[in-house]
């Protein structure tokens, strides 16, 4: 059955068509399942999207953030190169005389063959490393509850790749020998590995060589076609899901949650309680998952033993989608969940079985999972969408949260302190309200912590002193200020959030405000990235940005040195959500005498303080330790005198963490504004 000769070419053609047909059928079914999802517009900015594909798919930018990613880099490119080679191989199967060199010339073909050889070799090495990692090193992040199935899947994939490469080398080694002395055939000598392998076969007769070549060729092509069929059923589904997922990734701010349409009178349910209530993009996320585990490797909940693990969430959702999706398609969209055996995959419900309540409430929305996902899966939105269902439809949430929600409703702050006293912190300070003077450049939006919490009030005061020192024209809203509702939104109470947002936008816009300064990263992210959804279009700055700018412009000048050692904690909503990493460092470096160390987990790897996503208002009873304790310990390993922060919530979490360890005397927590005001204006505390 020499490839490309009659009737082998007919047979091959039929197999090829059959395999591709089956593959396309499977893909079509996956596509239909994905389309069960709700509509979402991800077709804007095509250019930017394509650029992202180039960077993150072909450049593997996020994959190679970690050493093990380089293995993937070579396997990925090996695949691309092999695929280019496969076109020639498959061509030969139809017509034996098909060859690249006839189109490309011998020079280019030689180069291509050399590349193929090199990448094939690299793939073998990378696969070895992958096997070693999976079965010897066994890192935590590759662990799944159905470990056997997952390992089996991975082993099949690795074995198939290995097999197809070995068979390819075999085919090429024998082809090289056959090409010698046969006119009209050519095999570049530059492919030195293939050529090298040919020594194994050099003793064979032409007859046996042809037989071997035929065997290798058929083996290689059949493995490839088998692989094609297997892909959609394996974790290598990501080969299909990842590229479109990168293309359709969220552009612009990662920090904005989707606005729910609460005006829709016909809506029967809000939030997500069944898998098909996710959007098609959220379902595509599931296809894209590579099971690399980086999300969980950086998840503060997972790392402190909470029930939540983003990789498991995605994995379970994917399995559930396949089962439920098939049912839905078979029943044309009206899947009745069969009652009975809860062990039955088909009987499982999304919230409760696939995602447990305590998982959903464990998320701090810190964004590490999203940040480190090589294929841009958006985990947080899924958790929030499910929280939205629980809160809006079932009024189901941790008991402590109810109190907070009522407090927001009646007094627009989480503690329920009288709204009329919101501006009292500024009594006796040189600060005006917009009502007194609205002809100012900036609104200083103080936020709840800065207005009511004795500790955070000090940050507000420091900020006032600094802005006055720099001659910045600003005012506050005082008693008129309202909570921004950021936390209500992340808890899933979109209704409450929207009520609060509409109210605050109206107040701020009534003064014609253009620019806003905040001291809280949560308010910052919310006003900056989410309020445009409600007509709040302002330039919003976190105080670290403002301070860095004022220092750069020479409007603030540091005087007193501070002979201390500082570590800095990047707030999630400032760093990962808004990429403000350099400005706080600039502020730190401006303070003379201050020694600065970077934590292991800093910048985009920063570890949440534990307060985000509404966790500030819930008891932390699950897991082996508290998140703030873990983070405080990370900071203390560097033996600092000061933990620098830029968020009132982080301040509380670190101070609590230090108190738990009886370290509050030795190590202090300061907002950068507090440190700066000491070195600039020693008279002020």
């Amino acid at each position, binding site marked *: 059955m020499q490839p490309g000769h009659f009737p082998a070419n007919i047979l091959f053609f039929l197999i090829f068509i059959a395999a591709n047909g089956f593959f396309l059928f499977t893909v079509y079914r996956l596509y239909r399942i994905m389309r069960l999802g709700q509509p979402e517009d991800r077709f804007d900015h095509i250019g930017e999207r394509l650029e992202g594909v180039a960077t993150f798919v072909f450049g593997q930018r996020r994959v190679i953030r970690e050493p093990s990613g380089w293995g993937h880099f070579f396997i990925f490119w090996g695949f691309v190169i092999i695929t280019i080679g496969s076109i020639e191989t498959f061509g030969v199967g139809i017509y034996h005389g098909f060859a690249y060199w006839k189109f490309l010339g011998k020079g280019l073909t030689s180069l291509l063959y050399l590349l193929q050889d090199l990448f094939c070799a690299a793939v073998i090495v990378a696969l070895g490393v992958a096997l070693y990692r999976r079965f010897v090193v066994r890192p935590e992040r590759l662990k799944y509850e159905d470990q056997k199935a997952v390992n089996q899947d991975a082993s099949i994939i690795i074995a198939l790749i290995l097999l197809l490469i070995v068979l390819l080398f075999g085919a090429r080694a024998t082809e090289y020998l056959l090409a010698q002395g046969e006119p009209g055939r050519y095999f570049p000598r530059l492919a030195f590995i293939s050529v090298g392998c040919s020594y194994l076969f050099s003793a064979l007769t032409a007859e046996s060589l042809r037989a071997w070549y035929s065997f290798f060729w058929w083996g290689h092509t059949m493995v490839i076609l088998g692989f094609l069929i297997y892909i959609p059923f394996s974790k290598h589904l990501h080969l299909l899901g990842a590229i479109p997922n990168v293309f359709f990734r969220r552009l612009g701010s990662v920090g904005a949650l989707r606005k729910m349409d609460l005006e829709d009178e016909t809506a029967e349910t809000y939030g997500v309680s069944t898998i098909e209530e996710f959007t098609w993009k959220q379902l595509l996320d599931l296809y894209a998952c590579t099971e690399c585990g980086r999300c969980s490797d950086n998840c503060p909940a997972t790392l402190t033993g909470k029930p939540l693990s983003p990789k498991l969430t995605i994995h379970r959702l994917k399995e559930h989608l396949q089962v439920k999706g098939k049912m839905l398609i078979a029943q044309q969209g009206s899947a009745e969940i069969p009652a009975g055996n809860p062990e039955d995959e088909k009987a499982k419900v999304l919230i409760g079985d696939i995602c447990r309540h305590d998982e959903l409430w464990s998320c701090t929305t810190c964004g590490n999972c999203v940040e480190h996902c090589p294929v841009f899966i958006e985990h947080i939105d899924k958790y929030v969408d499910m929280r939205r269902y629980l809160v809006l439809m079932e009024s189901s949430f941790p008991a402590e949260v109810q*109190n*907070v929600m009522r*407090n927001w409703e009646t007094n627009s702050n*989480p*503690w329920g302190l009288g709204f009329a006293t919101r501006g009292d912190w500024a009594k006796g300070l040189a600060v005006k309200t917009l009502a007194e003077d609205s002809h100012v450049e900036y609104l200083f939006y103080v936020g709840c912590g800065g207005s009511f*919490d004795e500790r955070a009030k000090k940050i507000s005061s420091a900020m006032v002193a600094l802005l006055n020192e720099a001659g910045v024209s600003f005012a506050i809203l005082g008693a008129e200020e309202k909570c921004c509702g950021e936390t209500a939104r992340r808890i899933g109470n979109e209704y409450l959030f929207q009520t609060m947002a509409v109210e605050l936008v109206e107040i701020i816009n009534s003064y014609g405000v253009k620019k806003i300064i905040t001291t809280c990263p949560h308010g910052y992210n919310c006003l900056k990235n989410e309020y445009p959804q409600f007509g709040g279009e302002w330039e919003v700055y976190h105080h670290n940005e403002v301070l860095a700018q004022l220092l750069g412009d020479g409007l603030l000048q540091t005087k007193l040195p501070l002979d201390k050692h500082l570590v800095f904690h990047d707030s999630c909503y400032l760093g990962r959500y808004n990429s403000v990493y350099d400005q706080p460092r600039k502020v730190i470096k401006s303070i003379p005498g201050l020694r600065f160390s970077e934590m292991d987990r800093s910048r985009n790897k920063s570890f949440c303080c534990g307060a985000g996503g509404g966790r500030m208002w819930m*008891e932390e009873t699950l897991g082996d330790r508290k998140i703030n304790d873990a983070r405080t310990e990370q900071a203390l390993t560097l033996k600092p005198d000061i933990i620098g922060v830029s968020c009132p919530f982080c301040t*509380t979490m670190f101070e609590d963490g230090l108190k*738990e360890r009886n370290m509050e005397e030795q190590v202090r927590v300061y907002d950068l504004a507090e440190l700066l005001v000491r070195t600039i204006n020693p008279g002020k505390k």
Partner: protein
Amino acid sequence: MAQGVCVITEFREGAFRRVSFEIASEGRRLADELGEPLLALALGESIDALAADLGNYGVEKVYVVDDPNLKNYRAETYVPVAAEVLNNLDPKVILTPASVDGKDFSARLAARLGAGLATDCTELKVEGGSLKAKRPMYAGKAFAWYEWADGAWPQMASCRPNVMDCLAPDTSKKAEVEGAGVEVVAGTQTQVVNIEKDAGGKLDLTEAEVIVSGGRGMKGPENFAMLEELAKLLGAAVGASRSAVDSGWRPHSDQVGQTGKVVTPNLYIACGISGAIQHLAGMSSSKYIVAVNKDPEAPIFSKADYGVVEDLFQFMPALIEEVKTLKSTC
């Protein structure tokens, strides 16, 4: 023509409750200012023999209804009897205790008599031959003075216990005692099915009028014994801050604060609690706050009515002694 000031006593388990003497004393003062006699209405079982003692506090004449059906307060037995007696007496002023039962009784009686009622009064005075009553509103954040419409007799006021001064009893004075001569009906609308004494005597935080609460400054679970002792003296519940609960010194059910219980006692004594906002959110609506902390900068002091900058291990024993002294003298 209405005349006289009438106080209605509260009798429980064979004795007048102290509030009865308080309103008798207050009634005496008002009766003198009005130039009216001071009468009393005493309802209860086996009350006859003790009724004359109300004279110790200035009551001139006591109308007594002594009946087994009046053993415990029930509106259906008490209210018709009292209404009948008072309709006959036609007093100008009626004073009642604003105790738990007294509140129910007062409101029902006022409705039956068609009288204007000022409840839970803390101060009474006479102006122009008419009563004026002061009472707290908005959880004590304001006070209102009440006056009665012209000719709206009787003027009825219930008095908050433990507020009005009690005269020193003059045991030489006895009141004239007279049976009221009214029929008591055995009511059937309500009945007490059961009274279950709390076994441990542990008061629920949200129900306690006084809370003694400990924080990280307590240094260990064993030191809460001090707070327990004080709580027992004050009839208080013991609370804890989150850090004390997190440290495992107290159960979560004791936690006061944002994510624990929100409490509004009359008195909250915070010992070794720094006063993070998460804690303040759970107790800042307490009527009176006492803070004991050795750190004068602790934020709790900004909320405290009475701040004590002291090492609590020195201070609390001294405080317990003082409270004991107070309790023994009254």
